[in-house]
């Protein structure tokens, strides 16, 4: 491992009153001293060094791009120091490459590769009913078809400024925000980390004309606007809400205070985002997802894939250039949802006589939270890897604002004394936060069908009542 033959001497620097900045200042100082020595800029030959530090004060060492509220920090006695932007030749993390180094010498010119419209351009992972997420392949044709669809239902131009607050790794922000923005030569206001104030300020400072967001964000903006009364930006000419239904009262009050229009969109990762839009105005019908957008065919089918009559509930099926060719490396999953050129969404709904579509339920066991799909099975698979868990079932229940939340039913092994906080902690180690159950209920058994399949529907219905009681108790306290 190391040459023990010659006894070398290292220096110990022991600092028992360190500040957060010392995490950075010590190695920088030591490196600088050593390099000065190497180039004979100094007479002092500096030794290999061991630094041990404990801290005198609470503190934060923040990257140059991280946002920290300095006033709040000083109120709470927390020292903040920033890592300066690294210059040329700064230290490099072993085994990684630095983007700024890579592009430093790279040419500003590039001739784009030739691609066919049906070549894959993007793979977006989304949770389905199976445990692991599936990679939805979106082709160049899919992406361009989506921009054409938007062009027809919600024209954008180079005079627009669109706010990119939705994450660009999600189909909604990527397809309708970034790709449509570039396609129209619009300006784009980027928000790396959402907060209601940041969103409001960005709309104001960049005089944004278009906003695409999720219902929670509209609710936050509205609360902020109510408390502000003045200084509400009026530049937005159109807003689109998607990911979950937006309450009618929120929608109306928002349109009034911001003097704008809100359209509600419906779409999936598999359809490169929007396939229908319920625009305020003439055809607006609360609760509807609107008429089908041009270039997209949408129909309601029964279990035999036969189209049903208007007003009858069935599964929503979609066809058109925006529909994915399938899942990456997964022909079985693709075959399950692609039937005769139609994509089966797993959403249940109906069409009325005016040709407007409505969503009533979901066919698949899927939980949708803030526009993100969550697979109950994935969470169950994590839960049962805990040695104290016999079996688990995960379902969606509604919170008091009627949003879907994740609830887990757990049967413990004999002798196990697991608590729900133990299990939640265990989940946090394995899963992204939005997938972590909000409620865990311990049961002696799970309701099962004759074939041994867990009856989720039964768990969902019994849950509704239980939750109501829990929420009531909370409010009384």
């Amino acid at each position, binding site marked *: *491992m*190391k040459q023990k033959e010659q006894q*070398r001497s290292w220096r110990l*620097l*022991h600092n028992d009153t360190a500040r*957060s900045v010392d*995490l950075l200042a*010590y*190695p920088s*100082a030591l*490196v*600088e*001293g050593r*390099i000065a020595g*190497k180039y004979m800029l100094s007479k002092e030959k500096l030794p*290999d*060094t*061991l*630094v*041990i*530090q404990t801290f005198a*004060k*609470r503190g934060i060492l923040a*990257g140059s791009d991280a946002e920290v*509220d300095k006033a709040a920090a000083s109120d709470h006695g*927390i020292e903040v*120091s920033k*890592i300066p932007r690294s210059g040329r030749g700064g*230290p*490099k993390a*072993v*085994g*990684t*490459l*630095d*983007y700024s180094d*890579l592009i430093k010498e*790279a040419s500003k010119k590039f001739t*784009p*590769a030739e691609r066919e419209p049906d070549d894959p351009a993007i793979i*977006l992972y989304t949770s389905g009913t199976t445990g692991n997420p599936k990679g939805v392949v979106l082709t160049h044709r899919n992406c*361009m078809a989506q921009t054409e669809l938007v062009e027809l239902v919600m024209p954008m131009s*180079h005079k627009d400024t669109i706010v990119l607050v939705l*994450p*660009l*790794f999600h189909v909604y922000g990527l397809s309708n925000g*970034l790709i449509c923005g570039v396609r129209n*030569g619009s*300006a*784009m206001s*980027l928000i*790396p*980390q959402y*907060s209601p104030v940041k969103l409001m300020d*960005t709309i104001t400072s960049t005089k944004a004309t278009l906003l695409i967001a999720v219902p929670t964000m509209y609710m936050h903006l509205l609360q902020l606007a109510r408390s502000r009364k003045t200084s509400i930006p009026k530049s937005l000419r159109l807003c689109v809400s998607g990911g979950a239904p937006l309450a009618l009262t929120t929608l109306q009050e928002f349109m009034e205070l911001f003097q704008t229009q809100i359209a509600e969109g419906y779409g999936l990762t598999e359809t490169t985002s929007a396939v229908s839009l319920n625009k305020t105005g003439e055809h607006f019908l609360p609760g509807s997802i609107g008429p089908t957008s041009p270039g997209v065919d949408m129909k309601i089918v029964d279990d035999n894939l036969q189209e049903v009559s208007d007003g009858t509930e069935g599964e929503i099926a979609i066809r058109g250039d925006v529909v994915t060719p399938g899942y*990456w*490396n997964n022909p079985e999953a693709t075959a399950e949802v692609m039937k005769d050129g139609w994509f089966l969404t797993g959403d249940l709904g109906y069409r009325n006589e005016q040709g407007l579509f409505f969503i009533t339920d979901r066919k698949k066991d899927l939980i949708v939270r803030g526009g993100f799909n969550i697979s109950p099975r994935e969470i169950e698979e994590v839960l049962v890897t805990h040695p104290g868990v016999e079996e688990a079932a995960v379902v969606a229940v509604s919170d008091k604002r009627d949003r879907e939340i994740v609830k887990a039913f757990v049967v413990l092994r004999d002798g196990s004394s697991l608590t729900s906080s133990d299990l939640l902690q265990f989940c946090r180690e394995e*899963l*992204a*936060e939005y997938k972590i159950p909000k409620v865990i209920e311990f049961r002696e058994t799970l309701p099962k069908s004759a074939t041994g399949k867990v009856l989720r529907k039964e768990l969902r219905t019994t849950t509704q009542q239980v939750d109501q009681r829990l929420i009531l108790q909370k409010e009384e306290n």
Partner: protein
Amino acid sequence: MSETLSTLLDQITKAYKRKDALYFEGKTITYRELNEQANKSANALAGLGITKGDRVAMMLPNIPEFIYCFFGIQKLGAVAVPFNSMYKGREITYILNDCGARAIITLSNFANLINEIREDVPSLEHVVLTGQRTLIFVTPESSLNVQLVVEKQTFTKPEDAFREVGALLVELLASFGVHEAWYKHRGGVRVGGRKIATILVSEIENLITVNAMLFLAPLDTKELFKVVWVTPEVKDKVLEPSTSIEELTGKRPDNGEVVSRLVELVKEHFGVDVVSGQMKRDELFGYEKVLSLAGR
């Protein structure tokens, strides 16, 4: 109109080159600049051997680099695989393996996370880091920092620094009664799934620097979130689940004891003598410089 994303940005730039494309933290980037940055990104990725059809994963928030890289990937004819920056190791491993990504572009903050799973993702050749959004929170009760600034030759190869310092910390923990600690590839030391120490190794010229944090007692993060606004969903990303010596043994070790035991272990592991000393003139210069740059 362009039929592919590969040519879209060039086409739009021709029509609107002087027009504003991006507003980001008070700065304005025009379409011409955006297109040039995307070209640079395409050339940089081509330089790494990325070519038509290759999958390039992206784990980034909404920062300009997301857009440069996304269009850089499209110009190359490669396939962009952007995914949720809240994902944890297990989820990331699955996605990278499923799509067979050859490269990932991510925030510097996530270097540790990706390094830890790297051995489980054989297709992944390049980890490209951008954006400095790291947040390190220290408290007198919880944090102990260990650094090494040593000649490169101390280790057979730089990657060994992770393993050797990891082994040293595992031994240190055992001597304080934490016996279940294990070193996780390039990332740090864990107990179960929770982190008890982080290790960061960097190299510059002929030197290796190791910067490790060890948690002696629970880290009270309530205060941190009064200062850093994050959506509830992202809170856990700022701080991975962690544990500490006190949480595992019921006793917070005495600082002095940890220091002396660490020194003994360093002597033993590296076969060196360790003598107390102070910073010298050139070092103090560098130290003051960092303090002023860091806004103190």
